[in-house]
């Protein structure tokens, strides 16, 4: 088509008449571009991750091969918190002839125990002993309670056979033995 046009123009030039090209408006329709820009804007707005995950720092003791450096603590200053399955918590002070108590994760449960015990004994050390039946949530909640009650001296400890025996003695003596319907899961 371009050839035809030039021919015409040449013809026109011969005749001495200047044929004016159709004057195109300098304004370009920018609607599609703007549409696209806003589409991208919406996409990136939605795709951006605004929420940064929250973290809780946990420091575990170094693995020591020999037990020589392990500090010794008076049994009376040790609060053991045993995390059991079905969101149960047992706690007691010391190990020999320990009085086992049961509590839960509610605001009036573990938190009150921790606050009372840390107030009663300034040298309190807390051992957190999660049983194999407990969940990660139990552990994190307990660690969180430590920071809420502002307890600095706590440690993650193994669930020992002694603990198991104590708790079995508690649930066997305090309540009727056997499976009780779990109602504390709400």
């Amino acid at each position, binding site marked *: 088509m371009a050839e035809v046009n030039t021919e015409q123009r040449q013809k026109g030039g011969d005749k001495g008449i200047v044929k004016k090209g159709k004057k195109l408006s300098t304004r370009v329709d920018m609607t599609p571009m703007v549409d696209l820009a806003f589409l991208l804007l919406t996409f990136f707005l939605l795709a951006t991750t605004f929420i*940064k995950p929250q973290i809780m720092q946990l*420091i575990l003791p170094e693995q020591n091969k020999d037990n020589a450096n392990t500090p010794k603590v008076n049994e009376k200053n040790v609060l053991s918190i045993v995390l059991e399955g079905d969101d149960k918590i047992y706690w007691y002070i010391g190990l020999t002839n320990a009085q086992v108590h049961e509590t839960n994760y509610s605001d009036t449960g573990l938190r009150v125990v921790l606050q009372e015990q840390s107030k009663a004994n300034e040298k309190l050390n807390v051992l957190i002993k999660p049983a*194999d039946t407990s969940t990660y949530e*139990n552990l994190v909640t307990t660690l969180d309670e430590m920071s809420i009650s502002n307890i600095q001296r706590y440690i993650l400890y193994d669930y020992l056979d002694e603990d198991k025996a104590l708790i079995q003695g508690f649930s066997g003596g305090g309540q009727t033995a056997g499976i009780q319907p779990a109602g504390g899961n709400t």
Partner: protein
Amino acid sequence: MAKIKMKRHSPSIDMTPMVDLGFLLVTFFMMTTQFQPSELATITSPRATSETKLPEANNATVVVSKDNRVFFRMDGTKNLKTLGEKLNSKYSLGMTESDIEKFSHKSGFGIDLRGMKQFLSLTETQQKNTAMSGIPVDDDNNNNQLIDWLIYARIANPDVRLVVKGDKDTNYPVIKKVMDTLVRCNINRFNLITDTKAKPTT
């Protein structure tokens, strides 16, 4: 009284400032967006009152899913490349240059290293459909591959920050295994990812 003539306004508004702002925002979001890495498994984090935020870069995450599988995730293509090379030579996986290149673009791993070469040769969709069995963290069978992931991750990026992301219903023994592995690699300080919970008002 003379009639007040209303000035006729053109019905079209000048939209230039709005469009300018639109483009400015597009550029801003394009530059700052960091896409969320594809989820390896659905994780519901436990809730805690901690308010510390996780920094964006230099993270290596150990993900523990509800069904006790362990995944590893790390940011930085360059770091992942080094990690891939190291693991390749340690386990003699026989990965080629292009395999390592593919490795460095993955957002997370959850398979036995011995199946890595085969896994990388699959197409994207096939990889998605492959069931990830999780990284072995088995100390009894002397098959704790997580140790090597962690050691080489630290070599690849010495500033790496270790993060544990566990599902709230994960059983404690798996978590303990992961934590013990971390301590064995001399990583005593690490972070647990938690969800928001209101601080008690006392």
